[in-house]
């Protein structure tokens, strides 16, 4: 457990990270200390009210080590990831700033990374992003100037070499713990570990995977990952989430890109008297199974429209093993001196 006085001040973008750390975020500290880390996704509001962000973060902060703020996931427009991260860091939460390559070019993204770092953001998750056609504004122009891998390398260059991709010097480089996604249960299965290796090569320090519902497939993936020695080079947080109902699961499977839910999981939910309860139970069981797999460093809970369940899921799964979560919340803006 990390004592409170050991935590970095609310916003101190220039604080030296501890030895052996690249950013010194709470998530990085937990992972490097060998603890089983927990992160969760915050569903961004369709509103300009900061209270909506705080309301969404409150139940998560007590049970996770960092809150992920999605960047128009599924190409649906919501409050921006950088806006949410800025609000949350101001009151002391640990955040993961998600960047999708779909909507912004290299000029915008590199600038936003500096802006986020100045607001105290210390974790960033580099994503390619779903195609615009999956979202609520399919007529939008897709950008994809970077892909997730070249983006990782660009931010690592900003951090370690202290320069933009234009070669221009950055006087105070951003301290970022670099994350990437992986989708172990999606085709092409045989190349997924190789692409993971590429992401590590590009600069990834941690990985948050897409939903994992298919344990045999995931274990096969992890076996390959261990054979390649990748689990020694990167912290892998496995994505899980509660299924609301069999109908919702089927809809997700056919409408949200890259989601694989095996039939037997959906059948189990369908046959249960309370489908939502069963979905939650499956999620807890998955977390417990995932925790036992060698090479896994944590879990990432994505509970779209089921945020109220996150804290129960994490506490009932017992992954925190009695330690306090570190994403925290230490000050309310109104009470700030």
């Amino acid at each position: 457990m990390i004592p409170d006085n050991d935590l970095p001040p609310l916003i101190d973008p220039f604080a030296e990270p501890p030895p052996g750390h690249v950013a010194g975020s709470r998530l990085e500290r937990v992972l490097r200390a060998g603890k089983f880390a927990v992160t969760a996704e915050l569903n961004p509001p369709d509103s300009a009210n900061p209270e909506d962000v705080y309301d969404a973060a409150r139940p998560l902060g007590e049970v996770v080590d960092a809150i992920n703020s999605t960047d128009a996931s599924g190409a649906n427009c919501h409050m921006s990831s950088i806006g949410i991260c800025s609000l949350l860091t101001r009151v002391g939460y640990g955040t993961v700033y998600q960047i999708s390559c779909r909507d912004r070019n290299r000029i915008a993204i590199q600038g936003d990374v500096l802006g986020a770092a100045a607001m105290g953001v210390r974790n960033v998750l580099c994503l390619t992003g779903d195609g615009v056609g999956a979202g609520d504004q399919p007529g939008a122009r897709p950008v994809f100037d970077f892909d997730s891998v070249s983006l990782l390398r660009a931010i690592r260059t900003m951090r370690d070499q202290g320069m933009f991709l234009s070669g221009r010097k950055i006087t105070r480089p951003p301290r970022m713990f670099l994350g990437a996604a992986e989708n172990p249960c999606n085709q092409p299965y045989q190349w997924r570990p190789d692409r993971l290796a590429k992401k590590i090569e590009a600069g990834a320090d941690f990985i948050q995977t897409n939903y994992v519902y298919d344990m045999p497939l995931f274990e096969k993936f992890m076996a390959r990952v261990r054979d390649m020695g990748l689990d020694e080079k990167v912290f892998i947080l496995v994505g899980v989430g509660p299924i609301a109902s069999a109908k919702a699961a089927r809809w997700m499977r056919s409408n949200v890109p890259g989601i694989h839910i095996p039939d037997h999981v959906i059948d189990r939910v369908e046959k249960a008297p309370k489908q939502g309860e069963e979905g939650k139970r499956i999620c807890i069981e998955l977390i417990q199974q995932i925790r036992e797999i060698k090479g896994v460093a944590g879990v990432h809970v994505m509970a779209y429209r089921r945020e109220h369940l996150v804290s129960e899921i994490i506490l009932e799964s017992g992954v925190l093993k009695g330690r306090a979560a570190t994403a925290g919340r230490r000050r309310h803006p109104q009470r700030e001196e």
Partner: protein
Amino acid sequence: MYRVRLFSVRHARSLEWLYKRLENLMVALDPLFARIGYDRIEVPMAVVERGVKGLLFDCRMCGQCVLSSTGMSCPMNCPKQLRNGPCGGVRPGGYCEVKPWMKCVWCEAWEGSTRMQGGAKIHEVLPPVDRSLEGSSAWLRVSREKAGKLRESKDAARTAVAVAYPGARDNEPSSAPLAPEPPSAVNRMARR
């Protein structure tokens, strides 16, 4: 054409062989190109290149050809134009997330690379595309780069990209070029 493109990936090995010969030829011709002037041969060469690679690979003339690192499957045909794919949205059977009737360009790429001698190049991180080089000849760029063996450039941005993606430059010189560009090779698309 989609079918020819798939054919090219199936025959990645012979095309790799052909490409190596072509590359050697282009590098050997560098003194001649330099004498004529790269600026003068840019347009005719780009026309030939567009014709040949358009037929074989559905080439989009990005000017920064990386086919030898992508199993002879052109990454510019990926709707997200990934240079390091595939993304997480691949559909069952290896089909594209955005164009479900099309085989994922990057599943093809990894498949194709297994057939190539230099297939391991696909493990190298490739830099983002320099959009100002679109429409120009990647072949001439390779001959300039390889013949010149430049290790640094006066252009800070080019040096920065080459430093950030060092392996890519070794494998695919045109993906992170350092040599000065002849005027006719830059911003061709914007001029249209």
